């Protein structure tokens, strides 16, 4: 098991959780050796989620930009509408294997909550989802979906009432109920072994995309681009190209209203090393070590930390982490709608915006592979409000 990524990662948790984490690490190590586990996971991903997802050549957008080819890895076509389900199915299988009776999860935009509620229904397990009260408000359609699926939603109104506070509350639940409860963490953050487990379950994205790119274009992409909040879809994409040094890995952080305004969620670009939610990682924090409120138009990127492995990849220069603002993400959102007939999630729109910036300067035979991590149905109201506010 990997517990640390250079100085990052680790298991900075209350003593009560050390036993459950050890139990999880052992169960995961055993599952990895068990062919039946992989067979069952693959079958569910194929027959239930609808994998594999295609890669789509964004031909009109590419022609419009006049440079590198833009390819989209279509995680938006997964059941539940995002990449999150790749991981929740894996973790729910682990939970069942470990004899756990109940699933809990934190969620920001609600996509991980929906994906957890979905597998809970599929496996017949009760499910409690913690969500910041502000996110409950701005992601109402996903709250309804979770309820339809039978999950109990707990709106967390203390602190900044967003994802970090939801995670605090989920941790409190887990500490009290760890004997029978499995905590389904939605991103490559949290204490070891979660960052490794989530990356492994999401690595299907990068592995498929690598093979598909070779099949379709006879070569690897020049750059693999994904958005980074906690960083699970990016780590899943990167995992497929880690051993291809010629492929640039690009993780796009949420620049909100701009780094200079302080209203953003770019932990690597604007943060300092710290310890939160079980891991040492780059954090947006005050001089006194208290965690700052973050801001992004995209609720799914609105988190003050980032997966520890991303910090490591940044330090060693294997991946780069540019910033995209709200305005740029919204422009990319519009472009994909109009040029390709695809409504992307606001999170994924950040990755797309970075590709749109880069493509014109690159030769026409270059390939930019963008992880379209989710679909944008949940964001209709947010985009409308954002545009109304801009126009007033």
């Amino acid at each position, binding site marked *: 098991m990997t517990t640390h990524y250079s100085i990052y990662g680790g298991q*900075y948790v209350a003593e009560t959780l*050390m036993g459950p984490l050890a139990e999880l690490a052992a169960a995961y190590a055993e599952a990895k050796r068990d062919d039946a586990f992989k067979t069952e996971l693959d079958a569910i991903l194929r027959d239930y989620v609808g994998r594999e997802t295609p890669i789509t050549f964004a031909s009109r957008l590419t022609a419009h930009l006049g440079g590198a080819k833009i390819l989209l890895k279509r995680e938006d076509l997964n059941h539940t509408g995002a990449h999150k389900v790749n991981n929740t199915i894996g973790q729910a299988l682990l939970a069942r294997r470990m004899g756990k009776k109940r699933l809990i999860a934190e969620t920001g935009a609600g996509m991980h909550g929906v994906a957890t509620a979905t597998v809970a229904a599929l496996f017949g397990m009760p499910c409690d989802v913690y969500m910041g009260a502000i996110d409950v408000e701005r992601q109402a359609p996903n709250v309804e979906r979770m309820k339809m699926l039978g999950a109990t939603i707990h709106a967390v109104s203390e602190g900044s009432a967003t994802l*970090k506070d939801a995670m605090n509350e989920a941790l409190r639940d887990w*500490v*009290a109920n*760890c004997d029978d409860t499995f905590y389904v963490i939605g991103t490559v953050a949290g204490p070891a072994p979660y960052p490794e487990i989530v990356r492994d379950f999401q690595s299907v994205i990068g592995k498929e995309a690598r093979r598909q790119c070779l099949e379709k274009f006879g070569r690897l992409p020049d750059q693999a681009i994904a958005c980074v909040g906690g960083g699970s879809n990016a780590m899943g994409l990167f995992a497929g190209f880690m051993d291809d040094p010629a492929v640039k890995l690009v993780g796009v952080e949420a620049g909100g209203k701009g780094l200079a305004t302080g209203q953003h969620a770019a932990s690597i670009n604007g943060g300092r*090393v710290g310890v939160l939610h079980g891991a040492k990682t780059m954090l947006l*924090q005050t*001089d*006194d070590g208290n965690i700052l409120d973050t801001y992004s138009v995209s609720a799914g990127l609105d988190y003050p930390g980032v997966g520890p492995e991303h910090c490591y990849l940044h330090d060693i220069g294997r991946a780069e982490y540019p910033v995209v603002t709200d305005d740029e993400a919204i422009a990319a959102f519009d472009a994909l709608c109009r040029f390709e007939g695809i409504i992307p999630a606001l999170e994924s729109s950040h990755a797309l915006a970075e590709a749109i910036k880069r493509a014109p300067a690159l030769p026409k035979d270059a390939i930019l592979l963008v992880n379209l991590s989710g679909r944008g149905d949940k964001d209709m109201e947010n985009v409308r409000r954002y545009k109304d506010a801009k126009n007033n």
Partner: protein
Amino acid sequence: MQRITEAFARAKEQNRGAFVAYWTVGYPSLRESEEAIERIIAKGADIIELGVPFSDPFADGGVIREAAYKALAQGTTLDSVLELASRVRERHPQTGLVLFSYYNPIFSKGVEAFANAAAAAGIDAVLAVDLPLEERDELVVPLRKRGVSFIPLIAPNTPLERVKASEQGLENSFLYIITVKGTTGARDSLPPDLAERLDAIRAVASLPVAAGFGISSPEQAAEVSRHADGYIIGTALMKS
């Protein structure tokens, strides 16, 4: 100075459990928290845990969380806790002082700078909620160089071999036994197997053993003291 060791020894001589009291510094205000700590020492507390408020108190129940948010809103920082500690130390040369914090405020200050400041303030030991055995050396080693100790947490699911490992290399300390799986906060009753568990831990431990989380009444404190060297009260004090 071995104030923590001495506090437990003194209580034992008097045939009672050592009284360890927690208070979140800065709640309801910095001045009032200092007064509250004075009152608690006057009531006979042997060791004071000075709580450092943190923005994300994921191990705490409602009362201590609200106290932390209130303290932060008034600008309480790790540095203000350390300053308060040195004033308490000046007035009370014998009282054990434990700084009780989440790890990030300490890490953010820098462990070396923190260790210097803690020693200068007369802190006897540090308890970091989210710094288990596997991660603690990065703080314990700098503290030890300045003669400041560390308090390990022992959970209901901590195996006895791990209890032994947790007290390795520590003196002037105690084992903080968490009575229940869950967050801090008063509870009507303590778990039925607590006495048995405390006896088992005491049988293998060299450090004194004190139990906390959920202890709210004198009866519970007395019951715990039959099986432990001390008891910790936090939420119940802050609510009263």
